[in-house]
């Protein structure tokens, strides 16, 4: 068997295992740490697909920034009451069963939908950009998708304003 196939199945097993651990673990901090492992392993999968820049971005943004924020915020709170209110009671059970059903539906639907989709992918779709080098990505990003790129800058500015506004709200469960 080819080494890359073997590697892919190894990495995929790790991803699925830790993704399940995220959901099953009842301590939110452990969940966040498992999610961080999932993110790093996903970066390795991008590596395997020769999407090197995306792999680097996955490491810097998701593993190095977003998950650090998650872990930090989890550690900032003393989650005891919240843990109970989210893990016990009729409402929580309803949400659990509902989301499990939803997940099964999503898996089923994605298997059904991707069955016909896989052979259709060709080199002209944006997904194929990952195969070409970062320079080609840059040329596409700054010519064809320039408008979306500038809009993204504006969106990030809006998020910054929103985050500052949210942090100033007084009250709530945390006094």
């Amino acid at each position, binding site marked *: 068997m080819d080494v890359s196939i073997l590697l892919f199945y190894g990495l995929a097993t790790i991803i699925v295992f830790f993704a399940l651990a995220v959901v099953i673990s009842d301590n939110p901090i452990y969940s966040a*740490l498992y999610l961080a492992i999932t993110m*790093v392993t996903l970066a390795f999968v991008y590596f395997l697909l020769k999407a090197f820049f995306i792999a680097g*971005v996955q*490491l*810097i943004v998701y*593993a190095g920034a977003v998950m*650090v924020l998650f872990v*930090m915020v989890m*550690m900032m709170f003393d989650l005891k009451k919240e843990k109970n209110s989210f893990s016990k009671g009729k409402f929580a059970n309803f949400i659990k069963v509902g989301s499990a059903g939803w997940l099964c539906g999503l898996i089923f639907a994605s298997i059904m939908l991707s069955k016909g989709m896989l052979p259709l992918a060709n080199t002209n779709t944006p997904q194929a950009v990952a195969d070409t080098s*970062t320079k080609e990505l840059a040329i596409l990003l700054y010519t064809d998708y320039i408008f979306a790129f500038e809009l993204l800058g504006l969106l990030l500015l809006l998020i910054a304003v929103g985050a500052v506004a949210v942090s100033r709200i007084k009250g709530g469960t945390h006094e």
Partner: protein
Amino acid sequence: MGADLFEVSVNLVKMIIIFVMMVQLVPLLVWVERRGSAFIQNRLGPNRVGPLGLTQLLADAVKFIFKEEFVPEKTKRFLFYAAPVVSLVPAAIAFGAIPLSLPINIEQFEMFGSTFGPYRFAFQSFEVGIGIVFVLGISSLGAYSMLMAGWSSNNKYSLLGALRSCAQMISYELALGLSIVGILLLYGTFDFATMIDAQQGPLTFMLLGKEVSVPFLPNWGIFYQPLGAILFFTAVFAETNRTPFDLPEAEAELVAGYHTEYSGLKMNMFYIGEYGHMMAASALMAVFYFGGYDIPFLSPDSVRETFLGWGLSANKAAIATAFLFHVSMFAKILFFLWVFIWVRWTIPRFRYDQLMDLGWKTMLPWALANTIITAIVIYIMRTNWS
């Protein structure tokens, strides 16, 4: 990893040697730090055990090994043990991705009655095409071991120290990331080896579309990016949690930061991680701004010719050349490591709000200005105006 057993085993051994080299450099650096700080402060430092106090390192190692295994109550045991082990990984991988010398090209040779085909061994643990982005991404994972250590200790000083050092690390990562954009604009590549190749020879640049050469200066990045180099080196100090940015260890308010509850070898491992980070940072500084393994006015080809002229075989000449240039790279790394130590014992620690102000309100705008100025200057210089 390689086509046949010989290549695979050489690559594996090389990888482990580079890692062990990193780990072995730590006690030596600790000795240099203690002796150096002593001389800076007009003391003698450790000088009793062995010549120049050198066997003090061994005594320290033995002491660390025979420490009692102690875990305070109500800790999260698994995370408590995992944190120091995890802290080794980012430094080791980041250091492994940086080329420490020229790649060695081995021609076909015979051994044990069978021929081994031509090989090319890179003088690093592994080659990644996106060098800079990869190293930046891997070293940003260093925050996890701190957070894990701080939270699992069940001590408020540990947690506060971890949160502080984490907030500090991510704040300075912005200035770090932005100061590298200037380097990318200059060389147009993510790859370290290509970047070092571009820094060979005398200082040569484009002036309004014409090539200008200054024969008495090496073609190093520091001459193009002086502000970027200063910003990068400052940000790296904050990334590695060294004084003047070692807020996690502000004894008066936080005891010892995120490793308050650690002792013995577990504590030592955090130090190996920290010094490993310093080594990776010094190597990056050398690659970006000081020509990597380049020796000014000495091209690798001429060195190889000289070795061949001495009667060495082609393979031996290639190996000797690589090791000569490795000495140059290593000297640069050691110089920057000394600067790390020198600064630690010269400049006092910042207050926390001053530190965050420096990161967000001073270094980030300056890094931004550096990027914009570099882009405009490169545009003016490289465009063919005629």
